[in-house]
C-alpha cells in the first residue's frame, strides 16, 4: 500500500509497486490530464510535479511516491479556479493545436520558470525537451516568455 498526495488530496494505491505513476493517475484515480505518449520518458506528455519538480510520470514507479506530493494539470490552478499564469499565457498565445502534449508542456514550463524566471531563448532550448507533434513550438516559446512576464508582474504586486 502506497500513500501519497495528489492535488492536495491524500490517496492510496494497493496495486503492483512497479506500476508507473502515470497509469495510477489515469486508470485508478481517473485523472486523465497527464497523457501517455511514449512510456520511456522521451516525449514528456505525462509530465507532472513531484514535490514541485517536473517529472515524467510514465517511468516513475509508484513505489517511489510514498509520502510525496503530486500535482497534475488538473490541480495546477488555485482553489478558486484561477488559472496558473502559465495556463493564462498558453491561452493568450493560443498555443494548442491537437492539444495532446500541452498539459505536459505546461507542467514542464511551470517548473522551468521556477528555475529560470527570466529565461532567454537559449535557456528554453537547453531545458525544454517535451515533444509536440503538431509543431506548436513557436507559440510555446512565445507563451513561455509571456508567462515569465505575467509571473514577474504577479510578484511585484
Amino acid at each position, binding site marked *: 500500500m502506497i500513500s501519497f498526495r495528489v492535488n492536495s488530496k491524500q490517496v492510496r494505491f494497493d496495486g503492483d509497486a512497479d506500476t508507473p505513476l502515470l497509469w495510477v493517475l489515469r486508470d485508478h484515480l481517473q485523472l486523465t490530464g497527464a497523457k501517455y505518449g511514449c512510456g520511456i520518458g522521451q516525449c514528456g506528455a505525462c509530465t507532472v510535479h513531484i514535490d514541485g519538480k517536473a517529472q515524467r510520470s510514465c517511468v516513475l514507479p509508484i513505489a517511489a511516491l510514498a509520502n510525496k506530493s503530486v500535482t497534475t494539470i488538473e490541480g495546477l490552478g488555485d482553489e478558486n479556479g484561477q488559472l496558473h499564469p502559465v495556463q493564462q499565457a498558453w491561452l493568450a498565445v493560443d498555443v494548442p493545436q491537437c492539444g495532446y502534449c500541452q498539459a505536459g508542456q505546461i507542467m514542464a514550463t511551470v517548473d522551468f520558470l521556477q528555475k529560470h524566471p527570466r529565461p532567454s531563448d537559449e535557456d528554453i532550448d*537547453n531545458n525544454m525537451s517535451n*515533444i509536440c*507533434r503538431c509543431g506548436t513550438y513557436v507559440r510555446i516559446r512565445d507563451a513561455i516568455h509571456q508567462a515569465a512576464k505575467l509571473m514577474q508582474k504577479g510578484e511585484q504586486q
Partner: protein
Amino acid sequence: MTAPESADWLASVSDKDVTDPGRRRFLITGATAAGSLVLGLPAGGEAFSSSDAAENRTRQIGFFVEIAADGDVIIGSNQPEIGQGVRTALPMLVAEELDVDWARVSVKPMPLGLLKTADGYTWKYGGQGVGGSTGLTRNWDFMREVGAIARQQLIRAAAVKYEVAAKRCTTRPGYVISDDLPRDIPYGELVKTAAALDLPDHNPVLKDKENYRIVGTRQKTVDAHDIVTGVARYGIDTIKPDMRYAVIARSPFLNGRVKSFDDTAARKINGVLKVFKIDGPEPGAPYLILASGVAVVATSTWAAIKGRKALQIEWEPGPNATDSTDAFWQQNEEMLKGSGQIVTDDGQYESAIETAHKTVQRSYQIPFVSHAPLEPQNCYAHVEKDSCHIVAPTQMPGGASRAAAAVTGLPRENIHIDISRVGGGFGRRLSNDYVAEAAMISQQTGWPIKLQWTREDDVRHDFYRPGGLHEMRAGLDETGKVIAWTQRLASASKHFRRPNKPDDGLWEPELYPDDFPRRIVDNFRLEYFHHPIGLPRGSWRAPAHTANAFVIQSFLDEIAHASGQDPLQFRLDLLGKDRELEYDGHGGPTYNPGRLARLLTFVATQIGYGDKRKKDRGVGLATHFTFGGYAAHAFEVSVDDAGGLIIERIVAAIDCGLAVHPQAVEAQLQGGTIDGISTALGLQITVKDGQVQQGNFDDYPLLRIAAIPARLETHILPYDDVPTGVGEMGIPSAAPALTNAIFNASGIRIRNLPIADQLKKARAG
C-alpha cells in the same frame, strides 16, 4: 438528394476532389423542450410521421445550430478535430451568417450520423471525415447556409410577431432590427415563433466578403481552455463503467503469424483476466486489421502491458521474413534500368531530350516514414448482442463504423460511433484497424474494453509514407530553357492491398501528373515502377506531395546551377504570369502558377535572397501547389566546417485564398514547416529481416524546441474570396527549401532523405 456514405468517400481524397452533393438538402427547424430554436437536417423518413410533439421532433433533427431563449448559441461540430482547427473554423462560418456575437457561441461535438435507406447508408449530418485538407472547403457553402437560414427565420419571426414587413428588417449581432420595430428584438425572444415557421424554398443570399465580422478575424481555439486545464477528452481518456483494458502483442514480422504461445506466466500477472489469439489477415490480402497477435485483457493498462511482456510467443515469420529496406533501395536502382509504365507522355519527349543542348540527370531517394501522432492508437468498444458502442480518435468515423460492422456482423445503424478529440492525425487515422481490433476483443470477451497501443505498437504497425527512388532528367535549349522533363519513380505504392485496384493504377497515388512543371514544359513524361514490399503504406500528410515537391524543387535548383542560372529567376521564368492551368487531380480543376511565383518572390524578398552573406551561410527557396492551396518557403542556414547545421531563419508564406480562421492558418503553416524539417532532418523507417527497426522517440527522433529557429515567420497572402484547405499546404516546400539552402551554404547537395549525418560525413570526407 442525399449523398451515399461509401467506403470510398474521402478515402481517395488525394485522387479526386470530394464534394458532398447531399449537403444541400433541405434544412428544417424545430424547438426543444426548453424552447430553443433548432436548425438541422431532417433525420429520416419516419421521423415526421411518428409524432408531432416538439420534443420528439427535435430529437430527430440532425442538429446543427440551437438558439436558446437567453440568446446563447450552440453550434454543432460534425467533423473530427485533429488539431487542424475545424471545431473553431466551421462554427465561425455559421456564426458569421447567423450574425451573432462569437462570444455567445459554444461548440458541441456531434457523433457519427448515418441513415439507412433503400439504397444503402447516407449521411445524417452531412459527410463526416477529415483528410486531404477538405474540411473547410467541403463545408464552406453548407455551414454558411445553415447560419443564413437560421438568421432568415429569425427575421421572418420578428415580422410575424410584430406585423412588420420582413424585407424591411435586418440584423445586428444577436438582434433583429428595423425602423418599423418598437425596439431591437433579441434573437432569444424570437426563437419560439421561428421554430413554428416553415422554411421558404429558396436559400437566402450569403454575405459579401466586405461585410464579414467573424470570418477572417483572429479567434481563439474553442477548446483551448479545456486543453490547458487537462479536461479535454481524447479517445485515450475514455473511462466507462466496468471497462477492462487490452493490449495486443502483434507479430513483429511483416505478415508474420502466431505459431504458438504460452500464457502461463502472463496469466499469473496481477490483474490479467484473459489472453487469446487474434487472427490476422492473409498475407497480401485486403485487411481489416494489420497483424496477427495475442490479446491480453486486464483490469488496468499496466497489468495488460505487464501481461503482454510475460507472454512467450513463437512467431511464424511468414512470406516477408527476408524483406529489408537496404535490398529495397538496391532493387529500385535495378528496376530503373528497365522500362516502367508510362503514365503521362506529352509532346515528343524522346526526340526533345536527344536534341537538347544540355541535359541534367539526378536521382533522389525518399524514405518510408511513420505518422507517430502523439496520442497512440486506442479505441473503446462495447459489443453487445444487438448493438455496439465505439469511442475512437479517428479521422474517418464512417470507416470506424464499417470496421466494427465487419467484425461484429451487426447492422451499421446499430453501431454508435462517438468521435473523441484526436491527439493528432497526419493521415494515420484514416485507417480504422485499431477500431476493428477493439471490436474483436470486446466481442470475444463480452466486456466493454479500451484497447491501448503502446508507442512501439504505433511505430511498428503503421501505414507508412511510401519510400521511393526518383530519377529525374531534363533537357535544356541554348538559352537554358527547359524543353524536356521526365520523372521516373520506383516506389512501393500507397495503394496497399486495396481490393479492386488494378496494378496499372498503382502509380496514381504516387505521381500527380498535373503538378508543376507539366503544361509548362512541352515534352513531359512520367514513368512508374511499382516495387512491392511487406511494409504497409498509407496516406501521410500531403501524401505524394512531400516526396514530389522535394524532388522537383531540388532538381530545379540543380538544373539552375548546372546551367549557370539563378535558382530564383529560373523558377520565376518557368512559373510565369497569372493563368489557370488544367489540374485534374485533387485540388483542381485548375491551378495558377502565377500564385506560386508571387509567393516565391515574397519569401525571397523577406529573407533577403540577394544579400551578401558570410561564408558557410546560404539561402534556399521552394514552392509548391498542394490540394488547392499554395505555399512557399525560404530558409537561411549555416553549415560549419564539421558539418554542423543551424537553421538561422525560416520565412513561410501561404496563399489559401480567403483565410477564414487566420490563427489556424498560421498554426498549420508553422506546424507543417516544422513537420517538414523534422522529417527531412532525421526520420525514417527501416526494415531488416522482415521487421521494422524503429520503435519509439529515441530512434524515431521528432524535433524538439531547441531545433526550431526562433525566427520562423509565417505570412498569409490573401487572394480572392474563396478559401482553400490549409492542413497540408505548409509541408511540401519546407524540406527542399532547407536542402537548397544547405547547398547554397556548403556546396553539399542532399539527394537522399533524411539528412541525418550526411553533412558531417561530407565534411569529414
